């Protein structure tokens, strides 16, 4: 069967530090990240024939600039296509899938993907809460009941704890695991050591969710370059090949999902493993989309990396920490690196490529051959599973 396996690879990555940088504009983030990615790929910028920015949420006019070619002009590129891809938090996975299709069909040869946003300083904390009390939430059937994203996470966490017996301490351990990686990540927003006690002592947002179990909105930007597998072999010693991908859309309105503790990850993962020709035991790294700790626990289980109900204990015993058996979310995730909108998923994809390319510095995982990665958008409406590797099995 003709699949996307081994057709393309990420050959260059770029990223600016995530956090609160009032003096740094979103366009500056985009330009710096894109420049870095092109340099890292080691290609001439004239080889880029397609530019794909994702949406910026901070400012509609800036977003329109991205749609209408500002990156192309700022970087002095000569391209055939400039188009936007936006699937909320799932943008990264959709980008890679579209890239593989464009390159496999010869439509594009080298694609530059860019994200930049300014959610940390362009709006107040309360404006951030209000933005995410309507974005992607049903205006008729859910907004009127006081929903927002902490509430979404609270509902899912409550049901998951009820069904699996997972403890508050085990959930808090996910935040600690992410923070231990962020301590080693110079681009992360929060790098001070975190303890389970301090997570559990932070205020309750939407019970059982604590404040330190919630991501923080941030400014940031990231970029990556995708080319064909053949071109990738010329360019670098260790490209990050796309080996498998699968996805499922389960709902729009959260209340319409019949199982809030699983979503579509198991089906998406089965497709991704099959395409890659790999099984969960082959996986060296789990670059799991967080935004809230519950989604890493669900993904660990539904991707077959832990038994159902065992993920909390797996994280609490240190298996996912630096030095552990299965490094997880090694940039610190949105819980520690910061949540930049569509960029949260792009940051974790860029991190997966960084680890596979052997460029993760202090936090480099010792064995990084096959990485599995997740992404999801809106109220966790879709489950995307991507497998990347340093070789094509």
């Amino acid at each position, binding site marked *: 069967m003709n699949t996307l396996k081994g057709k393309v690879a990420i050959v260059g990555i770029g990223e600016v530090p995530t956090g609160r940088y009032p003096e740094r504009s979103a366009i500056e983030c985009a330009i710096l990240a894109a420049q870095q990615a092109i340099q890292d790929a080691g290609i001439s910028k004239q080889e880029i024939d397609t530019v794909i920015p994702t949406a910026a949420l901070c400012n509609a006019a800036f977003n329109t600039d991205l749609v209408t070619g500002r990156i192309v002009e700022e970087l002095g590129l000569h391209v055939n296509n400039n188009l936007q891809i936006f699937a909320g938090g799932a943008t990264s996975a959709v980008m890679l899938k579209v890239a593989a299709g464009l390159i496999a069909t010869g439509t594009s040869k080298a694609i530059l993907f860019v994200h930049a946003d300014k959610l940390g300083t362009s709006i107040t904390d*309360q404006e951030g*809460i*209000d933005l995410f*009390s*309507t974005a992607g939430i*049903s*205006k*008729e*059937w*859910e*907004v*009127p*009941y*006081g*929903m*927002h994203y*902490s*509430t979404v996470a*609270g*509902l*899912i*966490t*409550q*049901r998951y704890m*009820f069904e699996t017996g997972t403890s508050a301490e085990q959930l808090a351990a996910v935040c600690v695991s992410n923070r231990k990686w962020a301590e080693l990540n110079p681009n992360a927003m929060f790098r001070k050591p975190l303890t389970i006690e301090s997570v559990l002592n932070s*205020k*309750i*947002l*939407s*019970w*059982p*969710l604590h*404040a330190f179990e*919630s991501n923080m909105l941030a400014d940031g930007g990231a970029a990556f370059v995708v080319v064909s597998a053949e071109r990738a072999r010329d360019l670098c010693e260790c490209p990050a090949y796309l080996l498998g991908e699968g996805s499922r859309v389960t709902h729009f*309105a*959260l*209340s*319409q999902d*019949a199982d*809030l503790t699983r979503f579509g990850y198991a089906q998406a993962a089965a497709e991704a493993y099959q395409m890659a020709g790999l099984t969960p035991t082959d996986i060296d790294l789990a670059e799991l989309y967080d935004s809230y700790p519950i989604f890493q626990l669900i993904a660990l289980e539904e991707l077959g990396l832990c038994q159902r109900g065992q993920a909390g204990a797996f994280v609490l015993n240190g298996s996912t920490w630096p030095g552990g058996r299965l490094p997880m979310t090694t940039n610190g995730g949105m819980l520690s690196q910061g949540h930049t909108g569509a960029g949260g998923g792009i940051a974790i994809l860029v991190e997966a490529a960084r680890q596979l390319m052997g460029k993760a510095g202090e936090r480099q995982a010792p064995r990084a051959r096959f990485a599995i990665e997740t992404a999801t958008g809106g109220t966790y409406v879709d489950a995307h599973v991507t497998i990347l590797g340093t070789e094509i099995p």
Partner: protein
Amino acid sequence: MTEKPIPPVDPWTKPYWDAAREHKLLLQFCPRCSKHIFYPRRYCPDCNSDQLEWVESAGVGKVYAFTVVRNNAPSAFIGDIPYVVAVVRLDEGVQMMTNIVDCDLDLVQSGMPVEVVFEKLTDEITLPKFRPVSDQAGRS
């Protein structure tokens, strides 16, 4: 104090809101699929039929998932803190997002039987909410 968000009304959802004003919870029913539908749709999401009927729900079900909002609420809901947001599974087999009201918040749990109550939001819009079933013994 920010005004509460008002749900937009479409022609095919208007009977739902009209009934809610009269303290009735309506569901759609697709005779072809023999299935209840919530939330109200223009077409049956299974068979695409536009011959959907309105039926009155018994208004009882069980809490599937819930959360107690204690901090960081949207502006319009800060005055309601603490409040419970829940997904309720109605006996007719559909799920809806709602609030659990008229009870001790610490007593809410998954599987708890609940019944519909109505809260007026504006002259046009009344929201169905749920409270613990008051007399479980009397319900057959």
